[in-house]
């Protein structure tokens, strides 16, 4: 990815976290991103149409309830928070994907997005995703986050 494209992705990522979850993110070198615990959640969405590809968002499990609480605008101890933690992450990647496709490509192109899915991964898998070409590292309110984007030519 060229520098201009990376900057655009970083801006979209930080903007969505800020506007949807009131959490503040900043890009960080992948070498400087340290794993947080052993339990992580990976959100995945794919798209086709004008371009085909996939986007993944990987966060530590303890970050998910915080995202949900902020998106819902409720206290972190609220009973809805744990129940809706995965759903909040799915919505986060859905919005990031929609924004990225428009901003990276064109507002005139039509994409079909899949329904986002989540699964649990461990620290070894986290490290594998971090090393992949197409992944970017972020710190969001002190949590390490990986964003992976793959677009077929």
């Amino acid at each position, binding site marked *: 990815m060229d520098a201009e494209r990376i900057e655009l992705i970083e801006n979209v990522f930080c903007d969505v976290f800020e506007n*949807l979850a009131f959490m503040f993110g900043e890009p960080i070198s992948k070498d400087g991103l340290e794993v947080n615990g052993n339990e992580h959640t990976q959100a995945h969405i794919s798209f086709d149409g004008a371009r085909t590809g996939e986007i993944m968002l990987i966060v530590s499990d303890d970050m998910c309830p915080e995202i949900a609480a902020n998106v819902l605008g409720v206290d972190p101890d609220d009973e809805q928070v744990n129940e*809706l933690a995965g759903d909040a992450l799915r919505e986060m990647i859905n*919005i990031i*994907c*929609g*924004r990225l496709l428009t901003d990276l490509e064109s507002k005139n192109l039509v*994409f079909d997005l899949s329904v986002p899915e989540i699964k649990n991964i461990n620290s070894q898998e986290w490290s594998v995703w971090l090393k992949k070409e197409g992944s970017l590292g972020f710190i969001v309110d002190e949590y390490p986050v990986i964003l992976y984007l793959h677009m077929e030519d």
Partner: protein
Amino acid sequence: MAYNILVVDDSAVVRAVIKKTLTLAGIDVGQIFNAENGQIGLDIAASEWIDLIFADINMPIMGGIEMVERLSEEGLLSTIPIIIVSTEGSVTRIAELKKKGVAAYVRKPFTPESIREVVAQVMGD
């Protein structure tokens, strides 16, 4: 006038956020009905008095576009305005939706101001 509103989105988080945003936007809401896909949305629209529908596009079982087409076939689209709430920003897709009879489009993430504005525009407040 209090509006009965149907929110069709597979995300419970989004349904909750729309409900909260409607209140923050100062919109007079009567009853709020929730549906997790277009099929359930159709069933509710056929059986309850609904003034306004907020619907997502990408949902399992039946998405928002098919729901709009089915509502149009059943003659409900002329009486119940639909506002699509989605992440997509394609102007081509938005134009297609409007051609199908969608009243308005709001892009996620939205604000109380954008919801207030679009409801006023659609309901003529």
